[in-house]
């Protein structure tokens, strides 16, 4: 297969330009839209670098969910503090652009250092590829990315799940209503969106399940699947409709914590079984990793959808509207 360099040049230049625009543009909305386009181009760049795992995560989380969160935050800002949105005076001064150009030039200057000098000094390709491929036989997953994320650096991934949980707690605190999980979406006739959700939810859940299952062998895994579920959940919450009861009620908070909790408890169980904390080895490893990933997927999807709801819908439902079932 021929490998046209101009695509890569276009991607690199386009990414730098989009980056600059999203930081320096006067209008915040344009900045957010530019950021979303940046994420999409970035995931194409990951595909070009043969990293489909990262491409999936970037498209789903970096561009999709984060973009939706930014748009939601922007809408809330419009309602509560519009003075921050009005562009005052000219855009960013030239020196900001020059500073960013300097950073970009430094990155370019580092490129030969990283690609030529460091491998020459190390006498071989840098990194942990060798040790990882040696440990793969016992890692419980045939996809090295999944083995690394869940097994070899499980601490990191477990703490990422905790960070998501903390982020959601932070939102609850900011809204002055700790533990609020009832969602009051804007009412109105969103029949078309409702039909779209009914059309989308089953394929969406199917794709999420597939992504978790395939993560052991091929690109996929809990974060990509969770982003898929989160996306379906977010659209469902926007539409009202049958998805909504899933996001309120007594089961929500245990489900939010399930990913981190199951990860932690399974890691502790490894000590009880005579091994090391968070070290999954042998014949049980694959099944344990799958269980952790399934619970993590549900938690990630739920957190992402609730974060979206928190920054999209007003914190207190308007009086006279239908009262969502509380959680008190």
């Amino acid at each position, binding site marked *: 297969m021929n490998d046209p360099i101009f695509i890569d040049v276009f991607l690199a230049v386009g990414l730098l330009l989009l980056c600059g625009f999203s930081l320096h543009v006067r209008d915040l909305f344009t900045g957010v839209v530019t950021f979303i386009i940046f994420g999409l181009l970035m995931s194409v760049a990951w595909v070009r670098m043969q990293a489909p795992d990262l491409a999936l995560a970037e498209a789903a989380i970096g561009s999709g969910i984060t973009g939706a969160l930014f748009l939601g935050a922007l809408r809330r800002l419009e309602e509560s503090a519009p003075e921050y949105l009005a562009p005052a005076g000219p855009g960013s001064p030239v020196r900001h652009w020059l500073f960013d150009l300097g950073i970009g030039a430094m990155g370019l200057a580092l490129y030969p250092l990283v690609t030529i000098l460091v491998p020459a000094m190390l006498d071989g390709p840098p990194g942990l590829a060798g040790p990882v491929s040696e440990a793969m036989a016992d890692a419980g997953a045939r996809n090295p990315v999944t083995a690394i994320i869940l097994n070899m650096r499980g601490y990191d991934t477990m703490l990422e799940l905790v960070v998501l949980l903390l982020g959601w707690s932070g939102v609850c605190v900011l809204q002055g209503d700790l533990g609020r999980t009832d969602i009051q979406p804007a009412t109105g006739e969103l029949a*078309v969106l409702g039909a*779209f959700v009914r059309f989308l939810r089953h394929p969406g859940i199917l794709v999420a399940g597939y992504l978790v299952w395939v993560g052991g062998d091929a690109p996929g895994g809990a974060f990509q699947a969770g982003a898929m579920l989160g996306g379906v959940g977010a659209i469902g919450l926007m539409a009202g409709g049958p998805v909504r009861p899933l996001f309120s009620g007594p089961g929500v908070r245990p489900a939010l914590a399930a990913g981190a909790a199951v990860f932690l408890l399974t890691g502790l169980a490894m000590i009880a079984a005579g091994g090391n904390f968070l070290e999954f080895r042998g014949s049980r490893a694959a099944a344990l990793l799958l269980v952790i990933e399934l619970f993590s997927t549900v938690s990630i999807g739920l957190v992402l959808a609730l974060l979206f709801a928190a920054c999209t819908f007003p914190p207190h439902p308007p009086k006279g509207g239908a009262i969502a079932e509380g959680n008190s």
Partner: protein
Amino acid sequence: MPPPIILLKYLLLIVALVFFTAGTVGILRFPDLYSRLHALTKCDNLGLGFVVVAVALHAADGWLAVKLVLIWFLALASSATACYLVARAGLRAGQEPWKREP
């Protein structure tokens, strides 16, 4: 002379490019939100459709072609929904439809 299947693929891609170009020109040049949306969905649906058919002809096996067509159907559904939502939001925000000057 390349085999006709390759010519067909190129032809489909060129037709797709025509739709994408027309849609992009429409977004840039049309006078109001609603006609721009109209232009956008045309290039999304038809342009992407022709790309999908061309790539499906290129695909190694039938399953890949089926997956590509399914992706197109998803894009159709989401672009129709998104178009409706943007138009509805525009109408609610008081965007006047463009009318020719009398």
